[in-house]
Each structure stands twice: as structure tokens, then as C-alpha cells.
């Protein structure tokens, strides 16, 4: 038994995290679309943007803008010129598909024949995609044009050969990594090839594509709220596609493929529902591209042949017992249109705190005029609190059960709010040792009170009250605090504990003197009782208590400094002004240059002086070897001096010292040879 209970808890805790509400496409999307897609000078920009705007408005049924006057001439011009980029042609045809501009049939004929040859020569997936899709658009716009693919089977094989074993597709034979986005495009292209084929295609080929789709759905990913999506984890050369556009591509591919084949795709309805939840779960996107992707994908799911998702939504998830609200549930398709006849059952409702079921197996009353299903929760003895309701949608017609996906149980978090009664509240001052009551006062917590109590450190303050729900049960709110604030703005907050049905707090001032920093004087009492499910949450000032506490001993802790204004913490700090050193006063440039020249003058004087003294170089060694050494010695000194110059200009100390080391050794050797030669000649002269 215990094991079974544990298992039940596990299932419940797993399902709780799935509780989330998805709403079908609504007026919010319409106003967002009107806001995001705004024509400038009668157009929406490029053909791609125009198509996105037109398609979104078409699906949402918005007829605010008529851009055909300004856009049709552009479309005609593009189609007549037959653009070199197959994407431009495709976009122009897409726009024309919605605008229905008057295009002559022979233009379509010309484009169709060019496209047919380009498909024969196509090698990459995108070439096939734009070619086949463009032909499909021409077929719908001008039914008499010959758009049939004579060798559809070859094209089908070429596209199929790009598929991978995991159900993903390659963009071209050269590309290294397969992509889910490409798989979506490929399926859409294959659907186009099947519908354009002049003869019936081999069923076994279609069968392998069907199993590819099943494999592709094995790689589906899942969020905690039960929504499913596809994601490409790679950055390929065609740019990265996020989960939204990848999932959208797959949905478009799978739905268009399932529409052209005979028989059903073997995909569980829950997966389609999960995908629908993914698109609806993003709410109302903030940019035009995402909004188009969402609305277009949802429209693909609205009437697909695999299974049509039904979305269960609640207009209100907060129900008030005081206002006698009814639990209302709506079941719609993704675009918000009404569902086939069905019954909504409340399987179970349990409190999210203690998981105890409060309601089981109730059938909601269907309102024949609207798609609402309602349940009177007042009669069902359900109390204030937070609950998780799980619903099941049961379709009446057994044929519909095959075509619609309801997704088993849907879990929804629901708040039931109500008026909480506050009873038998009283406040008292007790004598500490005897416990005898000094003063006792009844409190009316619903109205205004202004207590005036006094106590010393040998006494206690006790506060006591009861909270009951409309059904007479005890209620435990999220927050119950008693706050004492001293005149000097020192505050103390106490949590009021619950014992049985009562809330009770006893403040023993003897034990609290240190916490109160020995501050005697007037303390204001404030009581806070609050909860999300409590309609009459309150914060009231009860009055004040005059405390007489002993003198503070010397080592007593000081009260923390109180901020005069709490908002002063968040005020902007004074601006920091940086003080930079003022640039030194420089002398005029001419003066400095003049002195530079002046410093050279003594050198010339030195040279002239040398000449006058009759200096000569007769002592310079005349024989070859000592002369070389003497020359090297002088070169070495010059090298050291130029090294110093380099050190000043750009080198650092370490490079300089390294170079100086080698130069120094060289200089030592050469200098020694030169000077010893000189010394020996002079001694020879002397001795001679």
C-alpha cells in the first residue's frame, strides 16, 4: 500500500510540473499583427516581408490593408523579367498567390517551362525547393498552365538521396552536416513533387519517406510544460535556424506531405499536440518574423491530415468563493474555432500543498451556445487554496477520436480565493513568574484599533487569534508577522507561529532586552496577515506598547544606525569627476631648439681646441693586425653608444643588457689587445 502511495506521489510530482495553460490564437495576435506589420508607402518592403504580412493577415482574417495597387505592378515586373534568383521568383509568386494580380497566362507558361528545366538540372535541396514550390504556386494561380513534372520520379529520387539515416536531410551533397530544418524543406518539396507528378509515383518510395518522418520525430525535444519542438544544434552555411523556424519547417513539411499522400502518417496525436503547444506557448511574439512563423505553423496544424490538436484553456484561473465564480473551461482548435461535440471531465483536483484530492470524476456542463464548459465549485465543498485541476477531453463521435488530438489529461493550476474570518483575537500583558494576567484586551482585527499598553522587562506580551475559511476550516496564510518598531526607527519582526487552529505569539521581554538594545519607550505594534488566496489580507497598526527596560550595561550592543530614508540607498551616487594632472607649461619651441644647438657648441670648441693643440693620430698602430684591433675597438665603443641610443628610443632593459653583455666581452678582448700593443710600443720607446 505504502509503495503504491509512493508511486502515486511520484506520478503526481511529475505531472505537477507539466501544469501550464496554453491559449489558442486570439485577438491579442490580431492586434499584435496590426502593430508589427505596417505598410510604408503602400508596401511591406521586400516580397518576402510582404508575403509574411499578407499570409498572417489572411490566416487571422484581418482586412485592414490593401496593398495590391502598389505591389501588383512590382510583382508583374518581377515575373516578366524572370529573376535570376529562384528565391525572388518564389517570393513574387507567393505574394501573387494571395493578391491575385492579373498576370497573363503566357507569362506563367514561360516561367513554368523554365522552372521545369531548372528542376531537371537542380542539385541542391534549395534549388529543388524553390523550383517545385514555384511550380506548385503557378498551378494554383493558373490551372490551365502545364506545370506537370514529366520525370517526377527522378526528382523524387534526387531529393530522397539527400536524406540521412536519422530522418534529417542534407542541403546539398557537399554539405557535411544534416539538418532538421532541411528535412522540413525536403518534405515540403517532396509533397510538391507528388502533387505535380504527371504519373503515379511508386508507393514504396513514399513508404520510405513515411518511415523517415517517424525517425525524424524520434529526435523531437521536450520542454517541462509538455510542449515539443525540433532544434538544429549546428551552425551550417545556410545560417542558423532557431527552434521556432526549425519546428515550423518540419510542421509545414509534414502537414503538406500528409495532405498529398493516400493513407495516414503513423504519428501519435500527442506529438502533434505537443508541437501545437510549443507554438502557442511562446505567446504573442514581439517581432514580425516570429509572429508569421507562429501563425503560419498554427494554420498548418489547424486542418492537417495527421491529427488536429484541441487546446483546453481557461478564461480565469483565479476563482473567488465570495463572488461565486464558476470554473469555466474552453476547448478550441489552435486558431480558436470551435471543437466538435465533446465533454470535458474533471478527473481530479488536488491541493498543491499536500496532494490530497478534493474533487474526483466530475463532468462539466456544456453550454450549447458558447464552447464553454462550466462547473459549480461552490456546491462541491472546495476550500480556499491553491489547487491543481486535471481535465480530460472526451470526444462524442468515435470517428473524431481518430482525427483529433486531445492529449489525455491536462493539468491546470487554479487559485481559489475567499474571505478569511478572524476570530477570538486578544492581546495581553502577563506577569513573567506567575503567568497571571496583568491586562487583557479583546481586539477587533477587521477594524481600527489603537491599543495603549505598558510593560516592563519582567513581563510578557501575548497575542492570539484564529483564522477560518468560509467552510470553517482553519487557514494557514503564507505570511503572519508581528512588527515592533521603536521611536528611533529600530524595528523587530517576529513570525507568529501556529499551534493547532490558533495563531499565538508570546514575547518574553526578559529574553529580548538585549535584542531590543535596552531601548525603553514607545513601540508601535503592527500585524501583517497575507496570502495569495486570502481576499482580505491585511496590515494593521494595533497601537503601541510602552516598554520599561533596564539601563544598558557598558558592553551592551548599540542599535544599528538607522537610515533616515530607505530610498536614499537607491539614489544616484554623486558624480565622480576625475582630476587629471594639468599638463606642464612648456617653453617656446624656438628657445628649446636654440639651446639644443648651444649644447653642441662646446663640442665644436673642443674640436677646434684639439686642432690648435696640434693633435695627431701618429700613435695609431701602423701594422695590419694591431690596426685592425684598434679599429674594432673604436667600432665596439661606437656600437655600445648606438645600443644606448636604441635603448633610449625603443628597447627594454633586458634586451639591452643581453646585447651589452656580448658587446662588452668583445670590447674587453679587442681593447685589451689594442691597449697592450700600445703599452708595449711605449715601453720599447722608453727603453730605446
Amino acid at each position, binding site marked *: 500500500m505504502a509503495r503504491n502511495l509512493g508511486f502515486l506521489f511520484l506520478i503526481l510530482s511529475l505531472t505537477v510540473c507539466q501544469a501550464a495553460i496554453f491559449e489558442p490564437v486570439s485577438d491579442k495576435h490580431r492586434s499584435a499583427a496590426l502593430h508589427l506589420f505596417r505598410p510604408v508607402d503602400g508596401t511591406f518592403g521586400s516580397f518576402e516581408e510582404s508575403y509574411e504580412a499578407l499570409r498572417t493577415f489572411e490566416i487571422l482574417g484581418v482586412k485592414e490593408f490593401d496593398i495590391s495597387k502598389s505591389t501588383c505592378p512590382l510583382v508583374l515586373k518581377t515575373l516578366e523579367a524572370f529573376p535570376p534568383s529562384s528565391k525572388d521568383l518564389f517570393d513574387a509568386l507567393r505574394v501573387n498567390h494571395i493578391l491575385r494580380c492579373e498576370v497573363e497566362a503566357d507569362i506563367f507558361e514561360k516561367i513554368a517551362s523554365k522552372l521545369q528545366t531548372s528542376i531537371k538540372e537542380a542539385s541542391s535541396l534549395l534549388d529543388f525547393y524553390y523550383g517545385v514550390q514555384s511550380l506548385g504556386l503557378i498551378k494554383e494561380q493558373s490551372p490551365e498552365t502545364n506545370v506537370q513534372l514529366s520525370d517526377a520520379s527522378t526528382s523524387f529520387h534526387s531529393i530522397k538521396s539527400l536524406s540521412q539515416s536519422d530522418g534529417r536531410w542534407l542541403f546539398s551533397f557537399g554539405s557535411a552536416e544534416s539538418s532538421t530544418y532541411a528535412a522540413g524543406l525536403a518534405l515540403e518539396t517532396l509533397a510538391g513533387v507528388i502533387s505535380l507528378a504527371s504519373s503515379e509515383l511508386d508507393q514504396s518510395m513514399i513508404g520510405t519517406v513515411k518511415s523517415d518522418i517517424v525517425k525524424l520525430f524520434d529526435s523531437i525535444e521536450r520542454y517541462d510544460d509538455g510542449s515539443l519542438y525540433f532544434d538544429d544544434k549546428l551552425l551550417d552555411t545556410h545560417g542558423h535556424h532557431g527552434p521556432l523556424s526549425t519546428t515550423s519547417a518540419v510542421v509545414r513539411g509534414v502537414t503538406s506531405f500528409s495532405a498529398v499522400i493516400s493513407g495516414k502518417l503513423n504519428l501519435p496525436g500527442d506529438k502533434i499536440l505537443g508541437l501545437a503547444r510549443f507554438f502557442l506557448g511562446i505567446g504573442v511574439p514581439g517581432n514580425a518574423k516570429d509572429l508569421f512563423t507562429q501563425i503560419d505553423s498554427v494554420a498548418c496544424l489547424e486542418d492537417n491530415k495527421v491529427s488536429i490538436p484541441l487546446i483546453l484553456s481557461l478564461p480565469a484561473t483565479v476563482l473567488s468563493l465570495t463572488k461565486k465564480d464558476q470554473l469555466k473551461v474552453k476547448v478550441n482548435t489552435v486558431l480558436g474555432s470551435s471543437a466538435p461535440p465533446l465533454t470535458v471531465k474533471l478527473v481530479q483536483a488536488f491541493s498543491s500543498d499536500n496532494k490530497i484530492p478534493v474533487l474526483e470524476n466530475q463532468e462539466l456542463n456544456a453550454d450549447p451556445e458558447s464552447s464553454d464548459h462550466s462547473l459549480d465549485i461552490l456546491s462541491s465543498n472546495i476550500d480556499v487554496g491553491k489547487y491543481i485541476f486535471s481535465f480530460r477531453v472526451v470526444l462524442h463521435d468515435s470517428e473524431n477520436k481518430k482525427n483529433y488530438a486531445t492529449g489525455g489529461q491536462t493539468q491546470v493550476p487554479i487559485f481559489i480565493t475567499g474571505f478569511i474570518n478572524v476570530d477570538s483575537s486578544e492581546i495581553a500583558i502577563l506577569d513573567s513568574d506567575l503567568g497571571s494576567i496583568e491586562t487583557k484586551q479583546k481586539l477587533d482585527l477587521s477594524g481600527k484599533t489603537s491599543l495603549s499598553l505598558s510593560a516592563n522587562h519582567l513581563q510578557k506580551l501575548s497575542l492570539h487569534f484564529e483564522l477560518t475559511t468560509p467552510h470553517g476550516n482553519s487557514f494557514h496564510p503564507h505570511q503572519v508577522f508581528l512588527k515592533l518598531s521603536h521611536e528611533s526607527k529600530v524595528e523587530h519582526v517576529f513570525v507568529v507561529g501556529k499551534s493547532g487552529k490558533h495563531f499565538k505569539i508570546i514575547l518574553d521581554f526578559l529574553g529580548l532586552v538585549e535584542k531590543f538594545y535596552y531601548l525603553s519607550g514607545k513601540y508601535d505594534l503592527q500585524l501583517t496577515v497575507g496570502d495569495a488566496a486570502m481576499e482580505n489580507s491585511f496590515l494593521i497598526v494595533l497601537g503601541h506598547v510602552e516598554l520599561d527596560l533596564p539601563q544598558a550595561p557598558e558592553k551592551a550592543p548599540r542599535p544599528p544606525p538607522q537610515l533616515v530614508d530607505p530610498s536614499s540607498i537607491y539614489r544616484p551616487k554623486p558624480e565622480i569627476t576625475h582630476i587629471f594632472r594639468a599638463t*606642464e*607649461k*612648456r*617653453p617656446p619651441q624656438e*628657445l*628649446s631648439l636654440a*639651446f639644443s644647438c*648651444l*649644447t653642441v*657648441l*662646446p*663640442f665644436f*670648441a*673642443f674640436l677646434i*681646441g*684639439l686642432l690648435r*693643440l*696640434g*693633435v695627431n693620430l701618429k700613435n695609431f698602430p701602423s701594422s695590419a693586425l694591431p690596426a685592425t684591433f684598434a679599429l674594432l675597438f673604436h667600432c665596439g*665603443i661606437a656600437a*655600445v*653608444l648606438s645600443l*644606448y*641610443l636604441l*635603448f*633610449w628610443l625603443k628597447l627594454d*632593459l633586458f634586451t*639591452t643588457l643581453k646585447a*651589452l653583455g656580448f658587446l*662588452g666581452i668583445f*670590447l674587453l678582448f679587442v*681593447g*685589451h689587445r689594442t*691597449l*697592450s700593443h*700600445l*703599452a708595449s710600443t*711605449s715601453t720599447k720607446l722608453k727603453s730605446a
Partner: protein
Amino acid sequence: MVKTTSKDAQDLFRALRSAYAATPTNLKIIDLYIVFAIMTAVIQVVYVGIVGSFPFNSFLSGVLSCVGTAVLAVCLRIQVNKENKEFKDLPPERAFADFVLCNVVLHLVIMNFIG
């Protein structure tokens, strides 16, 4: 009286010049070098006196380079002078090698300091 003083001074200078004329040429070269170094230093000091000592480390390295090399030259002169019996055993080549080495070290420091 004034006349005699100026005549005495002239005599003194003449005596000094004639005595100095007997100094060996290599010592005269060193003297000239010392005067050149000191003059360069004086010009830099005058410059600083006029415009202020803003790149102070450059000024110090300039002046100390001159004064330092002048001091080293004085040392060289003492060692080379044959009348100094103290350095009789020291060959002038050895003294010149010392002078070169000291100058190399001095100017390494000067270059490091010049900024």
C-alpha cells in the same frame, strides 16, 4: 695702486700660461675635454634656469652625464700625469681602459634614467 694690481694680475696670468705651456699635450687634451663637458653642463643649467625644470629626470641625466664624465676625466688625468708618483707603476693605457669602462657603465645608467 690700481695699476699695480692689474699689472700683478697680468704677470700672474702670464706666469700661469707659461707654466701651463710646459704641460704635456695629452694632459692638455684631457683638460680641454673636461672644459667641454663642464661647459655643456653649464648650458643645460642655464636652460633650466630660464624655462623651469619640467622634464626633471632628463635634465638630471643630461647634467650628470656631463659632470660624471668630467669627474672621470679628472681621475684619468690624475692617473696619467707622470708627476704623480703614486701612480708611477700604472700604465696610462690601463687608466684609459678604466676610463672607457666607467663611461660605459655611467651612460647605461644615464640612458635608463633619461626617460
